[in-house]
Protein backbone atom coordinates (compact mmCIF):
# COMPACT_ATOMS: atom_id res chain seq x y z
CA UNK A 1 0.00 0.00 0.00
CA UNK A 2 2.96 2.30 0.63
CA UNK A 3 3.54 2.38 -3.10
CA UNK A 4 0.36 4.42 -3.54
CA UNK A 5 1.97 7.28 -1.57
CA UNK A 6 4.01 8.04 -4.67
CA UNK A 7 2.27 10.47 -7.02
CA UNK A 8 3.06 8.36 -10.10
CA UNK A 9 1.25 5.39 -8.56
CA UNK A 10 -1.73 7.58 -7.63
CA UNK A 11 -1.89 8.80 -11.21
CA UNK A 12 -1.65 5.21 -12.46
CA UNK A 13 -4.53 4.19 -10.21
CA UNK A 14 -6.79 7.13 -11.08
CA UNK A 15 -6.09 6.74 -14.80
CA UNK A 16 -6.88 3.03 -14.67
CA UNK A 17 -10.12 3.63 -12.74
CA UNK A 18 -11.36 6.24 -15.25
CA UNK A 19 -10.65 3.88 -18.14
CA UNK A 20 -12.12 0.91 -16.28
CA UNK A 21 -15.35 2.86 -15.92
CA UNK A 22 -15.52 4.40 -19.41
CA UNK A 23 -14.43 1.45 -21.57
CA UNK A 24 -17.35 -0.89 -20.71
CA UNK A 25 -19.86 2.01 -20.94
CA UNK A 26 -18.92 2.25 -24.62
CA UNK A 27 -18.15 -1.44 -25.06
CA UNK A 28 -21.72 -2.53 -24.32
CA UNK A 29 -22.92 -0.85 -27.54
CA UNK A 30 -20.11 -2.47 -29.52
CA UNK A 31 -20.99 -5.90 -28.12
CA UNK A 32 -24.65 -5.34 -28.92
CA UNK A 33 -23.87 -4.58 -32.55
CA UNK A 34 -21.52 -7.57 -32.80
CA UNK A 35 -18.49 -5.32 -33.17
CA UNK A 36 -16.73 -6.64 -30.09
CA UNK A 37 -13.35 -6.67 -31.79
CA UNK A 38 -13.57 -3.21 -33.34
CA UNK A 39 -11.61 -1.71 -30.45
CA UNK A 40 -8.77 -4.00 -31.40
CA UNK A 41 -8.87 -2.80 -35.00
CA UNK A 42 -9.00 0.86 -34.04
CA UNK A 43 -6.10 0.23 -31.66
CA UNK A 44 -4.02 -1.13 -34.52
CA UNK A 45 -4.73 2.02 -36.53
CA UNK A 46 -3.95 4.21 -33.51
CA UNK A 47 -0.48 2.66 -33.45
CA UNK A 48 0.25 4.17 -36.85
CA UNK A 49 -0.69 7.50 -35.30
CA UNK A 50 1.73 6.87 -32.44
CA UNK A 51 4.49 6.12 -34.92
CA UNK A 52 3.72 9.22 -36.94
CA UNK A 53 3.70 11.33 -33.78
CA UNK A 54 7.07 9.99 -32.61
CA UNK A 55 8.55 10.50 -36.07
CA UNK A 56 7.23 14.06 -36.41
CA UNK A 57 8.06 14.95 -32.80
CA UNK A 58 4.42 15.68 -32.05
CA UNK A 59 2.41 14.33 -29.12
CA UNK A 60 1.95 10.63 -29.99
CA UNK A 61 -1.38 10.51 -28.15
CA UNK A 62 -2.76 13.48 -30.10
CA UNK A 63 -1.75 12.07 -33.49
CA UNK A 64 -3.09 8.67 -32.37
CA UNK A 65 -6.51 10.22 -31.61
CA UNK A 66 -6.63 11.61 -35.15
CA UNK A 67 -5.48 8.35 -36.77
CA UNK A 68 -7.86 6.26 -34.66
CA UNK A 69 -10.79 8.55 -35.47
CA UNK A 70 -10.12 8.29 -39.20
CA UNK A 71 -9.79 4.50 -38.84
CA UNK A 72 -13.00 4.19 -36.82
CA UNK A 73 -14.97 6.28 -39.30
CA UNK A 74 -13.59 4.18 -42.17
CA UNK A 75 -14.69 1.00 -40.38
CA UNK A 76 -18.14 2.51 -39.77
CA UNK A 77 -18.52 3.38 -43.46
CA UNK A 78 -17.59 -0.17 -44.46
CA UNK A 79 -20.05 -1.54 -41.88
CA UNK A 80 -22.91 0.72 -42.98
CA UNK A 81 -22.44 -0.30 -46.62
CA UNK A 82 -22.87 -3.90 -45.49
CA UNK A 83 -20.78 -5.31 -48.30
CA UNK A 84 -19.65 -8.91 -47.98
CA UNK A 85 -16.05 -7.83 -48.47
CA UNK A 86 -16.33 -5.82 -45.23
CA UNK A 87 -14.26 -8.17 -43.13
CA UNK A 88 -11.49 -8.15 -45.72
CA UNK A 89 -11.46 -4.36 -45.74
CA UNK A 90 -11.24 -4.45 -41.94
CA UNK A 91 -8.35 -6.93 -42.08
CA UNK A 92 -6.44 -4.62 -44.45
CA UNK A 93 -7.03 -1.72 -42.07
CA UNK A 94 -5.94 -3.70 -38.99
CA UNK A 95 -2.73 -5.09 -40.37
CA UNK A 96 -1.91 -1.98 -42.33
CA UNK A 97 -2.33 -0.03 -39.09
CA UNK A 98 -0.02 -2.16 -36.96
CA UNK A 99 2.59 -2.59 -39.71
CA UNK A 100 2.60 1.15 -40.36
CA UNK A 101 2.96 1.79 -36.63
CA UNK A 102 5.92 -0.56 -36.20
CA UNK A 103 7.57 0.86 -39.32
CA UNK A 104 7.15 4.50 -38.29
CA UNK A 105 8.26 3.89 -34.70
CA UNK A 106 11.35 2.14 -36.10
CA UNK A 107 12.14 5.10 -38.35
CA UNK A 108 11.95 7.51 -35.44
CA UNK A 109 14.56 7.74 -32.69
CA UNK A 110 12.28 5.93 -30.26
CA UNK A 111 13.51 2.75 -28.59
CA UNK A 112 11.70 -0.58 -28.54
CA UNK A 113 10.78 0.20 -24.94
CA UNK A 114 8.78 3.12 -26.32
CA UNK A 115 6.92 0.85 -28.71
CA UNK A 116 6.21 -1.60 -25.90
CA UNK A 117 4.73 1.20 -23.81
CA UNK A 118 2.06 1.72 -26.46
CA UNK A 119 1.58 -1.96 -27.34
CA UNK A 120 1.09 -3.17 -23.77
CA UNK A 121 0.50 0.00 -21.75
CA UNK A 122 2.66 1.99 -19.39
CA UNK A 123 0.49 3.16 -16.53
CA UNK A 124 3.37 4.23 -14.31
CA UNK A 125 4.70 6.79 -16.80
CA UNK A 126 1.45 8.81 -16.92
CA UNK A 127 2.27 12.49 -16.46
CA UNK A 128 -0.08 14.94 -14.71
CA UNK A 129 -0.96 16.37 -18.14
CA UNK A 130 -1.74 12.86 -19.44
CA UNK A 131 -3.99 12.25 -16.45
CA UNK A 132 -5.93 15.44 -17.15
CA UNK A 133 -6.47 14.32 -20.76
CA UNK A 134 -7.61 10.86 -19.63
CA UNK A 135 -9.98 12.30 -17.01
CA UNK A 136 -11.58 14.90 -19.32
CA UNK A 137 -12.01 12.56 -22.29
CA UNK A 138 -13.11 9.69 -20.04
CA UNK A 139 -15.76 11.90 -18.44
CA UNK A 140 -16.96 13.02 -21.87
CA UNK A 141 -17.32 9.38 -23.00
CA UNK A 142 -19.22 8.48 -19.81
CA UNK A 143 -21.63 11.43 -20.05
CA UNK A 144 -22.36 10.71 -23.72
CA UNK A 145 -22.79 6.96 -23.37
CA UNK A 146 -25.05 7.24 -20.31
CA UNK A 147 -26.92 10.38 -21.35
CA UNK A 148 -27.77 9.12 -24.84
CA UNK A 149 -28.47 5.59 -23.71
CA UNK A 150 -32.07 5.31 -25.02
CA UNK A 151 -31.08 6.48 -28.50
CA UNK A 152 -27.81 4.55 -28.66
CA UNK A 153 -29.62 1.45 -27.39
CA UNK A 154 -32.29 1.82 -30.09
CA UNK A 155 -29.73 2.25 -32.86
CA UNK A 156 -27.60 -0.66 -31.67
CA UNK A 157 -30.60 -2.90 -31.04
CA UNK A 158 -32.59 -2.40 -34.27
CA UNK A 159 -31.07 0.03 -36.74
CA UNK A 160 -33.96 -0.11 -39.24
CA UNK A 161 -36.51 0.65 -36.56
CA UNK A 162 -34.37 3.57 -35.41
CA UNK A 163 -34.39 4.93 -38.95
CA UNK A 164 -38.18 4.69 -39.17
CA UNK A 165 -38.32 6.44 -35.78
CA UNK A 166 -36.59 9.39 -37.43
CA UNK A 167 -33.49 9.09 -35.23
CA UNK A 168 -30.27 10.57 -36.68
CA UNK A 169 -28.89 7.08 -37.22
CA UNK A 170 -25.81 8.09 -39.20
CA UNK A 171 -24.82 10.71 -36.61
CA UNK A 172 -25.29 8.26 -33.75
CA UNK A 173 -23.23 5.60 -35.55
CA UNK A 174 -20.44 8.09 -36.18
CA UNK A 175 -20.64 9.17 -32.54
CA UNK A 176 -20.03 5.58 -31.45
CA UNK A 177 -17.14 5.31 -33.94
CA UNK A 178 -15.49 8.50 -32.67
CA UNK A 179 -16.09 7.51 -29.04
CA UNK A 180 -14.39 4.18 -29.79
CA UNK A 181 -11.37 6.01 -31.19
CA UNK A 182 -11.15 8.32 -28.18
CA UNK A 183 -11.55 5.48 -25.67
CA UNK A 184 -8.90 3.42 -27.45
CA UNK A 185 -6.43 6.26 -27.37
CA UNK A 186 -6.85 7.09 -23.71
CA UNK A 187 -6.86 3.42 -22.77
CA UNK A 188 -3.68 2.95 -24.80
CA UNK A 189 -1.66 4.39 -21.92
CA UNK A 190 -3.23 2.01 -19.43
CA UNK A 191 -3.46 -1.38 -21.08
CA UNK A 192 -1.84 -0.85 -24.50
CA UNK A 193 -3.36 -1.14 -27.97
CA UNK A 194 -3.22 -4.94 -27.93
CA UNK A 195 -5.34 -5.26 -24.78
CA UNK A 196 -7.82 -2.39 -25.16
CA UNK A 197 -10.66 -4.50 -26.50
CA UNK A 198 -10.50 -6.65 -23.38
CA UNK A 199 -11.51 -3.73 -21.14
CA UNK A 200 -14.37 -2.78 -23.48
CA UNK A 201 -15.74 -6.27 -23.94
CA UNK A 202 -14.85 -8.61 -21.06
CA UNK A 203 -16.77 -6.72 -18.29
CA UNK A 204 -19.85 -6.67 -20.57
CA UNK A 205 -19.51 -10.39 -21.26
CA UNK A 206 -19.24 -11.03 -17.52
CA UNK A 207 -22.20 -8.83 -16.61
CA UNK A 208 -24.61 -10.18 -19.19
CA UNK A 209 -24.39 -13.67 -17.74
CA UNK A 210 -26.33 -12.59 -14.67
CA UNK A 211 -28.32 -9.50 -15.71
CA UNK A 212 -31.79 -9.30 -17.28
CA UNK A 213 -31.86 -5.84 -18.85
CA UNK A 214 -29.67 -3.48 -20.83
CA UNK A 215 -29.47 -0.84 -18.14
CA UNK A 216 -28.50 -3.29 -15.41
CA UNK A 217 -25.92 -4.88 -17.74
CA UNK A 218 -24.37 -1.48 -18.35
CA UNK A 219 -24.22 -0.66 -14.63
CA UNK A 220 -22.77 -4.05 -13.73
CA UNK A 221 -20.20 -3.91 -16.55
CA UNK A 222 -19.03 -0.49 -15.39
CA UNK A 223 -18.72 -1.74 -11.81
CA UNK A 224 -16.76 -4.76 -13.02
CA UNK A 225 -14.49 -2.56 -15.14
CA UNK A 226 -13.82 -0.35 -12.12
CA UNK A 227 -13.07 -3.42 -9.99
CA UNK A 228 -10.75 -4.95 -12.59
CA UNK A 229 -8.85 -1.67 -13.04
CA UNK A 230 -8.47 -1.04 -9.31
CA UNK A 231 -7.47 -4.54 -8.29
CA UNK A 232 -5.31 -4.98 -11.40
CA UNK A 233 -3.22 -1.94 -10.50
CA UNK A 234 -3.03 -3.12 -6.89
CA UNK A 235 -1.84 -6.58 -7.96
CA UNK A 236 0.69 -4.98 -10.30
CA UNK A 237 2.00 -2.76 -7.50
CA UNK A 238 2.30 -5.49 -4.90
CA UNK A 239 3.50 -8.35 -7.13
CA UNK A 240 5.50 -6.11 -9.48
CA UNK A 241 3.71 -7.35 -12.61
CA UNK A 242 2.83 -5.46 -15.80
CA UNK A 243 -0.18 -3.25 -14.88
CA UNK A 244 -2.03 -3.55 -18.23
CA UNK A 245 -1.79 -7.31 -18.31
CA UNK A 246 -2.79 -7.53 -14.63
CA UNK A 247 -5.94 -5.45 -15.20
CA UNK A 248 -6.99 -7.62 -18.14
CA UNK A 249 -6.26 -10.88 -16.31
CA UNK A 250 -8.36 -9.74 -13.32
CA UNK A 251 -11.22 -8.96 -15.76
CA UNK A 252 -10.94 -12.39 -17.37
CA UNK A 253 -10.69 -14.09 -13.97
CA UNK A 254 -13.94 -12.34 -12.94
CA UNK A 255 -15.55 -13.63 -16.13
CA UNK A 256 -14.52 -17.21 -15.35
CA UNK A 257 -15.69 -16.96 -11.73
CA UNK A 258 -19.10 -15.61 -12.76
CA UNK A 259 -19.45 -18.14 -15.59
CA UNK A 260 -18.68 -21.11 -13.32
CA UNK A 261 -20.76 -19.77 -10.43
CA UNK A 262 -23.69 -19.12 -12.78
CA UNK A 263 -23.50 -22.62 -14.26
CA UNK A 264 -23.37 -24.20 -10.79
CA UNK A 265 -26.27 -22.08 -9.56
CA UNK A 266 -28.42 -23.00 -12.56
CA UNK A 267 -27.60 -26.70 -12.11
CA UNK A 268 -28.53 -26.57 -8.43
CA UNK A 269 -31.76 -24.74 -9.16
CA UNK A 270 -32.70 -27.21 -11.87
CA UNK A 271 -32.24 -30.08 -9.44
CA UNK A 272 -34.26 -28.49 -6.64
CA UNK A 273 -37.15 -27.16 -8.75
CA UNK A 274 -38.19 -29.82 -11.24
CA UNK A 275 -39.61 -28.23 -14.38
CA UNK A 276 -42.98 -29.28 -15.67
CA UNK A 277 -42.95 -31.95 -18.37
CA UNK A 278 -42.64 -30.23 -21.75
CA UNK A 279 -45.97 -30.01 -23.54
CA UNK A 280 -45.64 -31.79 -26.88
CA UNK A 281 -46.28 -29.92 -30.11
CA UNK A 282 -49.75 -30.64 -31.51
CA UNK A 283 -49.65 -33.24 -34.25
CA UNK A 284 -49.55 -31.81 -37.73
CA UNK A 285 -51.18 -34.79 -39.37
CA UNK A 286 -53.50 -37.52 -38.18
CA UNK A 287 -52.25 -40.99 -38.99
CA UNK A 288 -54.99 -43.57 -39.17
Amino acid at each position, binding site marked *: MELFQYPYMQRALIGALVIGLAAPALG*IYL*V*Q*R*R*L*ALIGDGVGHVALTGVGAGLLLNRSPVLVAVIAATIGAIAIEIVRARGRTSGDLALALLFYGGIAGGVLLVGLSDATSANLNAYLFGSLTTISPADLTTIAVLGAAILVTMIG*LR*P*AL*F*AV*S*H*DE*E*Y*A*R*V*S*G*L*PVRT*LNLLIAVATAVTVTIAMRAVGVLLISALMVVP*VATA*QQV*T*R*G*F*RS*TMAAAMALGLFAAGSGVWVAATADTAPGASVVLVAIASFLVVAVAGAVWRAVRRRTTPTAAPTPEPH*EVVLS
Partner: protein
Amino acid sequence: MTSPVITVEHGVVGYDGRPVLRDISLTVTAGEVVAILGANGSGKSTLIRAVLGLVPISAGSVTLFDRPLRRFRQWARIGYVPQRLGAGGGVPATVREVVASGRLARRGVLRPPGRADRSAVDAALGAVGLAARAGDPVSTLSGGQQQRTLIARALAGQPELLVLDEPTAGVDAASQEAFAGALRDFVGDGGTVLLVAHELGPLRPVISRAVVVHEGRIAHDGAVPDPAGHHAEPDHDHVHPHCYDEPAGLWSN
Protein backbone atom coordinates in the same frame (compact mmCIF):
# COMPACT_ATOMS: atom_id res chain seq x y z
CA MET B 1 -61.70 11.07 -42.82
CA THR B 2 -60.66 10.65 -46.45
CA SER B 3 -57.29 12.36 -46.50
CA PRO B 4 -54.58 10.12 -48.00
CA VAL B 5 -52.05 8.79 -45.49
CA ILE B 6 -49.89 6.85 -47.94
CA THR B 7 -49.71 7.48 -51.67
CA VAL B 8 -47.45 5.48 -53.95
CA GLU B 9 -47.43 6.48 -57.62
CA HIS B 10 -45.82 4.26 -60.24
CA GLY B 11 -43.28 3.01 -57.72
CA VAL B 12 -40.40 0.92 -59.05
CA VAL B 13 -37.88 -0.87 -56.80
CA GLY B 14 -35.01 -3.11 -57.83
CA TYR B 15 -32.25 -4.93 -55.97
CA ASP B 16 -28.96 -5.06 -57.90
CA GLY B 17 -30.70 -4.35 -61.19
CA ARG B 18 -33.31 -7.08 -60.67
CA PRO B 19 -36.76 -5.45 -60.55
CA VAL B 20 -38.86 -6.44 -57.51
CA LEU B 21 -41.67 -3.88 -57.83
CA ARG B 22 -42.48 -2.93 -61.41
CA ASP B 23 -45.22 -0.32 -61.38
CA ILE B 24 -47.06 0.05 -58.10
CA SER B 25 -49.71 2.67 -57.40
CA LEU B 26 -51.45 2.52 -54.07
CA THR B 27 -53.36 4.93 -51.86
CA VAL B 28 -54.25 4.33 -48.21
CA THR B 29 -56.62 6.84 -46.63
CA ALA B 30 -57.12 7.60 -42.95
CA GLY B 31 -59.04 4.96 -41.02
CA GLU B 32 -58.44 2.17 -43.51
CA VAL B 33 -56.97 -1.23 -42.63
CA VAL B 34 -55.22 -2.42 -45.76
CA ALA B 35 -53.66 -5.86 -46.06
CA ILE B 36 -50.99 -6.48 -48.69
CA LEU B 37 -51.21 -10.10 -49.71
CA GLY B 38 -48.99 -12.14 -51.96
CA ALA B 39 -46.77 -15.17 -52.19
CA ASN B 40 -43.19 -15.15 -50.92
CA GLY B 41 -41.02 -13.25 -53.36
CA SER B 42 -43.96 -11.29 -54.78
CA GLY B 43 -42.48 -8.04 -53.44
CA LYS B 44 -45.03 -7.33 -50.72
CA SER B 45 -42.47 -6.76 -47.97
CA THR B 46 -40.40 -4.64 -50.35
CA LEU B 47 -43.46 -2.48 -50.94
CA ILE B 48 -43.82 -1.47 -47.29
CA ARG B 49 -40.06 -1.08 -46.92
CA ALA B 50 -40.15 1.32 -49.86
CA VAL B 51 -43.06 3.21 -48.28
CA LEU B 52 -40.94 3.69 -45.13
CA GLY B 53 -37.83 4.69 -47.07
CA LEU B 54 -35.88 1.61 -45.96
CA VAL B 55 -35.28 0.66 -49.60
CA PRO B 56 -34.88 3.40 -52.22
CA ILE B 57 -37.36 3.61 -55.09
CA SER B 58 -35.74 3.97 -58.49
CA ALA B 59 -38.77 5.57 -60.12
CA GLY B 60 -42.15 6.94 -59.09
CA SER B 61 -43.01 8.69 -55.84
CA VAL B 62 -44.00 7.96 -52.24
CA THR B 63 -46.03 10.48 -50.23
CA LEU B 64 -46.66 10.20 -46.49
CA PHE B 65 -49.23 12.46 -44.84
CA ASP B 66 -49.20 14.80 -47.85
CA ARG B 67 -45.44 15.12 -47.82
CA PRO B 68 -42.92 13.61 -50.22
CA LEU B 69 -41.00 10.83 -48.46
CA ARG B 70 -37.71 12.67 -48.86
CA ARG B 71 -38.99 15.66 -46.93
CA PHE B 72 -41.11 13.71 -44.43
CA ARG B 73 -39.92 14.28 -40.85
CA GLN B 74 -42.94 13.53 -38.64
CA TRP B 75 -41.88 9.95 -37.97
CA ALA B 76 -43.76 9.93 -34.66
CA ARG B 77 -46.96 9.59 -36.69
CA ILE B 78 -45.82 6.17 -37.92
CA GLY B 79 -45.35 2.98 -35.92
CA TYR B 80 -43.31 0.31 -37.68
CA VAL B 81 -43.42 -3.36 -36.72
CA PRO B 82 -40.68 -5.39 -38.41
CA GLN B 83 -40.99 -9.08 -39.13
CA ARG B 84 -38.87 -10.16 -36.21
CA LEU B 85 -36.63 -8.93 -33.45
CA GLY B 86 -32.97 -8.96 -34.41
CA ALA B 87 -30.87 -11.29 -32.32
CA GLY B 88 -28.36 -8.57 -31.49
CA GLY B 89 -25.04 -9.30 -29.89
CA GLY B 90 -26.51 -11.09 -26.91
CA VAL B 91 -26.68 -8.14 -24.52
CA PRO B 92 -29.89 -8.68 -22.56
CA ALA B 93 -32.75 -6.19 -22.83
CA THR B 94 -36.03 -6.28 -20.95
CA VAL B 95 -39.40 -6.14 -22.68
CA ARG B 96 -39.95 -2.71 -21.18
CA GLU B 97 -36.61 -1.41 -22.50
CA VAL B 98 -37.45 -2.55 -26.03
CA VAL B 99 -40.96 -1.07 -25.87
CA ALA B 100 -39.57 2.20 -24.48
CA SER B 101 -37.55 2.63 -27.71
CA GLY B 102 -40.90 3.34 -29.32
CA ARG B 103 -41.09 6.66 -27.48
CA LEU B 104 -37.94 8.07 -29.08
CA ALA B 105 -39.70 9.20 -32.25
CA ARG B 106 -41.97 11.40 -30.13
CA ARG B 107 -39.45 12.47 -27.51
CA GLY B 108 -36.29 12.98 -29.53
CA VAL B 109 -32.75 11.89 -28.76
CA LEU B 110 -31.81 14.37 -26.06
CA ARG B 111 -34.83 14.57 -23.76
CA PRO B 112 -34.91 12.01 -20.92
CA PRO B 113 -38.11 9.97 -20.51
CA GLY B 114 -40.87 11.60 -18.45
CA ARG B 115 -44.16 10.55 -16.92
CA ALA B 116 -46.04 10.65 -20.24
CA ASP B 117 -43.44 8.30 -21.73
CA ARG B 118 -43.77 5.82 -18.89
CA SER B 119 -47.55 5.76 -19.00
CA ALA B 120 -47.55 5.32 -22.79
CA VAL B 121 -45.19 2.34 -22.40
CA ASP B 122 -47.45 0.88 -19.70
CA ALA B 123 -50.51 1.31 -21.91
CA ALA B 124 -48.78 -0.32 -24.90
CA LEU B 125 -47.66 -3.28 -22.77
CA GLY B 126 -51.21 -3.68 -21.50
CA ALA B 127 -52.68 -3.47 -25.00
CA VAL B 128 -50.76 -6.55 -26.14
CA GLY B 129 -51.14 -8.40 -22.83
CA LEU B 130 -47.49 -8.35 -21.81
CA ALA B 131 -47.66 -6.12 -18.71
CA ALA B 132 -46.69 -9.07 -16.50
CA ARG B 133 -43.56 -9.77 -18.58
CA ALA B 134 -42.27 -6.16 -18.64
CA GLY B 135 -39.16 -6.93 -16.57
CA ASP B 136 -38.24 -10.17 -18.35
CA PRO B 137 -35.45 -10.36 -20.94
CA VAL B 138 -37.00 -10.46 -24.44
CA SER B 139 -34.84 -13.46 -25.29
CA THR B 140 -36.86 -15.59 -22.85
CA LEU B 141 -40.15 -14.87 -24.64
CA SER B 142 -41.81 -17.08 -27.22
CA GLY B 143 -41.82 -16.01 -30.86
CA GLY B 144 -45.38 -14.76 -30.57
CA GLN B 145 -44.62 -12.80 -27.41
CA GLN B 146 -41.59 -11.23 -29.08
CA GLN B 147 -43.83 -10.20 -31.97
CA ARG B 148 -46.24 -8.63 -29.46
CA THR B 149 -43.30 -6.79 -27.90
CA LEU B 150 -42.55 -5.23 -31.30
CA ILE B 151 -46.21 -4.24 -31.71
CA ALA B 152 -46.17 -2.67 -28.24
CA ARG B 153 -43.00 -0.76 -29.20
CA ALA B 154 -44.83 0.70 -32.20
CA LEU B 155 -47.98 1.46 -30.14
CA ALA B 156 -45.94 3.18 -27.43
CA GLY B 157 -45.20 6.04 -29.84
CA GLN B 158 -48.96 6.66 -30.15
CA PRO B 159 -48.82 6.65 -33.96
CA GLU B 160 -51.60 7.47 -36.41
CA LEU B 161 -50.41 4.85 -38.88
CA LEU B 162 -49.21 1.35 -38.10
CA VAL B 163 -47.09 -0.44 -40.70
CA LEU B 164 -46.64 -4.14 -39.97
CA ASP B 165 -44.51 -6.69 -41.82
CA GLU B 166 -45.98 -10.21 -41.50
CA PRO B 167 -47.20 -9.69 -37.94
CA THR B 168 -48.76 -13.14 -37.73
CA ALA B 169 -46.17 -15.32 -39.47
CA GLY B 170 -45.21 -18.21 -37.24
CA VAL B 171 -47.12 -16.77 -34.28
CA ASP B 172 -49.11 -18.96 -31.88
CA ALA B 173 -52.90 -18.73 -31.83
CA ALA B 174 -53.07 -16.91 -28.47
CA SER B 175 -50.71 -14.20 -29.71
CA GLN B 176 -52.65 -13.89 -32.98
CA GLU B 177 -55.85 -13.27 -31.01
CA ALA B 178 -54.10 -10.78 -28.72
CA PHE B 179 -52.73 -9.03 -31.79
CA ALA B 180 -56.12 -8.92 -33.55
CA GLY B 181 -57.60 -7.37 -30.38
CA ALA B 182 -54.87 -4.74 -30.14
CA LEU B 183 -55.38 -3.91 -33.81
CA ARG B 184 -59.16 -3.56 -33.36
CA ASP B 185 -58.61 -1.13 -30.48
CA PHE B 186 -56.11 0.85 -32.54
CA VAL B 187 -58.50 1.12 -35.50
CA GLY B 188 -61.39 1.92 -33.15
CA ASP B 189 -59.44 4.95 -31.97
CA GLY B 190 -59.15 6.20 -35.55
CA GLY B 191 -55.81 4.65 -36.53
CA THR B 192 -54.79 3.61 -40.02
CA VAL B 193 -53.09 0.27 -40.71
CA LEU B 194 -51.01 -1.09 -43.56
CA LEU B 195 -49.91 -4.65 -43.04
CA VAL B 196 -48.23 -7.38 -45.03
CA ALA B 197 -49.66 -10.83 -44.54
CA HIS B 198 -49.33 -14.26 -45.93
CA GLU B 199 -52.46 -15.59 -44.30
CA LEU B 200 -55.03 -13.40 -42.58
CA GLY B 201 -56.39 -15.85 -39.97
CA PRO B 202 -58.10 -14.03 -37.08
CA LEU B 203 -57.24 -10.66 -38.65
CA ARG B 204 -59.71 -11.16 -41.51
CA PRO B 205 -62.68 -9.35 -39.91
CA VAL B 206 -60.52 -6.29 -39.16
CA ILE B 207 -59.26 -5.82 -42.74
CA SER B 208 -61.17 -3.25 -44.79
CA ARG B 209 -59.31 -3.69 -48.06
CA ALA B 210 -56.90 -6.15 -49.61
CA VAL B 211 -54.15 -5.50 -52.14
CA VAL B 212 -52.66 -8.54 -53.84
CA VAL B 213 -49.11 -8.15 -55.15
CA HIS B 214 -48.07 -10.62 -57.83
CA GLU B 215 -44.70 -10.53 -59.59
CA GLY B 216 -44.10 -6.93 -58.62
CA ARG B 217 -47.47 -5.60 -59.76
CA ILE B 218 -50.81 -5.10 -58.06
CA ALA B 219 -53.05 -7.94 -59.18
CA HIS B 220 -56.08 -7.06 -57.06
CA ASP B 221 -57.21 -4.06 -55.03
CA GLY B 222 -60.53 -4.27 -53.23
CA ALA B 223 -62.45 -6.71 -51.07
CA VAL B 224 -60.56 -9.46 -49.27
CA PRO B 225 -60.44 -12.34 -51.79
CA ASP B 226 -61.69 -15.75 -50.79
CA PRO B 227 -59.01 -18.35 -50.39
CA ALA B 228 -58.68 -20.82 -53.25
CA GLY B 229 -57.33 -24.34 -53.57
CA HIS B 230 -56.21 -26.07 -50.43
CA HIS B 231 -56.21 -22.73 -48.61
CA ALA B 232 -60.00 -22.77 -48.83
CA GLU B 233 -60.39 -25.94 -46.82
CA PRO B 234 -62.08 -25.03 -43.54
CA ASP B 235 -59.46 -26.74 -41.42
CA HIS B 236 -56.53 -25.45 -43.46
CA ASP B 237 -53.77 -24.56 -41.07
CA HIS B 238 -51.03 -22.57 -42.65
CA VAL B 239 -47.91 -24.28 -41.39
CA HIS B 240 -45.38 -23.27 -44.06
CA PRO B 241 -45.17 -19.49 -43.88
CA HIS B 242 -41.69 -19.35 -45.38
CA CYS B 243 -41.98 -22.01 -48.05
CA TYR B 244 -40.73 -20.87 -51.41
CA ASP B 245 -42.49 -23.48 -53.57
CA GLU B 246 -45.95 -22.15 -52.92
CA PRO B 247 -48.38 -24.52 -54.64
CA ALA B 248 -51.15 -23.21 -56.88
CA GLY B 249 -53.70 -21.27 -54.87
CA LEU B 250 -54.94 -17.80 -54.20
CA TRP B 251 -51.96 -15.98 -55.73
CA SER B 252 -51.69 -17.82 -59.01
CA ASN B 253 -54.64 -16.35 -60.89
